[in-house]
């Protein structure tokens, strides 16, 4: 048990992912929800690298490069959406964003 194996990394990744998921469900501030999404993406990255490490494969790390690229694009667009919404509604509370529903 004192030998670091893939399972340790996978468990860490699962814990981080679930903390991020709970943050998305609990918090109401859009910016913090955004941070939690980033946390979940990072947890997925740990899983990919861990499996690549287990199988002596480079593909896991290649996938993480793509994930990081997509996360960067997502950050730019998501934060721009948050900015535009906060300008229009003067709020970053996700409960105020109900124009489409009402």
């Amino acid at each position, binding site marked *: 048990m004192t030998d670091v194996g893939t399972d340790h990394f996978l468990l860490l990744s699962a814990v981080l992912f679930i903390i991020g998921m709970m943050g998305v469900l609990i918090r109401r501030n859009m910016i913090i929800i955004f941070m939690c999404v980033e946390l979940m993406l990072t947890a997925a990255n740990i899983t990919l690298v861990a499996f690549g490490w287990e199988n002596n494969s480079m593909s896991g790390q290649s996938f993480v490069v793509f994930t990081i*690229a997509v996360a960067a694009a997502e950050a730019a*667009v998501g934060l721009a959406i948050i900015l535009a919404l906060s300008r229009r509604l003067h709020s970053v509370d996700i409960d105020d964003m109900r124009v489409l529903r009402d």
Partner: protein
Amino acid sequence: MPWDFVAFMLLAAICVICAGGVVASANPVHSGIFLGICFIHVAGIFVMLGAEFLAVVQVIVYTGAILVLLLFVLMLVDPDALPEFTSAHPVQRTVAVLLGMVLLLEVSVAILGRTVKGVASNATPENIALVGGNTQALGRSLYTEYLLPFEIASLVLTVGVIGAIVLAMPERLGERVRRRGTISLGHPRGTDLVLPEGVRGESPIPDSAAELETGLPSRREVIMVGNARDYTTVGRGRQ
């Protein structure tokens, strides 16, 4: 004493604590700082997994770019809106925690009871050292096996940048320009003559005590020009 186990435990513990801090702290700035610490320790995990290049990319892209962008947005949004705690409904919160626990249990069982192993590939530490290191091996993988996805990723980034600029552009640019014109009327060289009486722009700060009392400008010069519209852009639009 297996030092790699100690290092892993330390990194993992700080990661999890900081992730909890992201979710739990009421101030978004504190959340951002916790997120940064968490990302740096995830970079340490990547080093343990032999992914040095990704560790550096993690620090540069996540803590360097995304987090700074996040903090900029924190500064740009309405500061009154930031301190949350119209938090989620209690039922919603309980359900979220319960769901999280159940999911964690399921995933842990799945991980610990895992019997399927992947097919071992040829990127063993010896082969990676033969190529020249982790960065070289990753580069070979990206530019041969994953060349097309790599190009598509660059396209995604371009679209993301353009989308961000379009989305974050101020909606009512025209109004701002008009207001700037009104403010520039307060300038001593402004052409107050072309404007009708009453809407004369005043400088927001009175020049003297007398001006403050009477409300009339005391020492503002008015330059006479033949055609005010040629002299300044203020007169434009008032045909």
